[in-house]
């Protein structure tokens, strides 16, 4: 496998009030984003605890994004 065919798996923890809404709006506008990004809606980025990204990484994702 070369770097180019590897599909990175990313979890995006997104605040329900902004980043999650933005993603929703982007969808509404028929904008595309890579399917390997998995969006997890959270009530606020203040909800982020080290345990959340840790569990995602343990489950095998390559990166964690916190958007808010």
């Amino acid at each position, binding site marked *: 496998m070369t770097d180019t065919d590897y599909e990175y798996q990313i979890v995006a923890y997104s605040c329900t009030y902004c980043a999650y809404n933005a993603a929703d709006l982007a969808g509404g506008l028929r904008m595309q984003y890579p399917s390997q990004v998995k969006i997890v809606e959270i009530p606020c980025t203040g909800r982020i*605890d080290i345990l959340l990204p840790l569990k995602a990484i343990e489950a095998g994702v390559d990166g964690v994004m916190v958007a808010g």
Partner: protein
Amino acid sequence: MITAEQKPLAEIQGLLGDAKKVLVVGCGTCVTVCFAGGDREAQIMAASLRMASKINGHPQEITDITVQRQCEWEYLDEIEKEIADADIVLSLGCGIGVQAIAEHFPDTWVVPGLNTTFLGMPTEQGVWEERCAACGDCILGLTGGICPIARCSKSLLNGPCGGSEDGHCEIDPEVPCAWQLIYDRLESKGKLDLLLEIQPPKDWSKSRDGGPRKIVRQDLRLIEDEA
């Protein structure tokens, strides 16, 4: 409260060796408050060890559980089954918790995940300081509520040594001079005369120097056979 900090992960991995089933036991009291060994830290520790064991190519089955207090038999009874199921127990309790597990579950091999550091308190967010040495003979009444046994680097009883400078101890600019603190406090309370009294050598037999200590309260004991 008892203040502790986690051992480095590599040291913990060394203590665990190649045990197949590891149980991480957190403690819900002192070490939770100092963010060293509570439920959250136990979960993080278990996740970190699981990932480390995968990276090393010898995946271990690592689970975690947290009890209210590792230092009481009743709370330990609650996790008897989980303990029996594990090859090794990693206690994130203080040194008392580790020993309580060892004593309560003689068939279990338990190792410490923390270094128990001191009796102290958080002085600000993220900062803990030692306050008490549990010397068994409290003299805070003479020193304005500031303990020279725990907080003076030399545990002096008769005032500051020559190493007090600008309020700190000569061993480290970050360490306040306990005797400067005592002096300031006694001065502000008009009690400097307390400092002029010669304090005799301390009775260390009431401290750890007298051997392991024990308190027996007959009024509280459950005596089964009084007859």
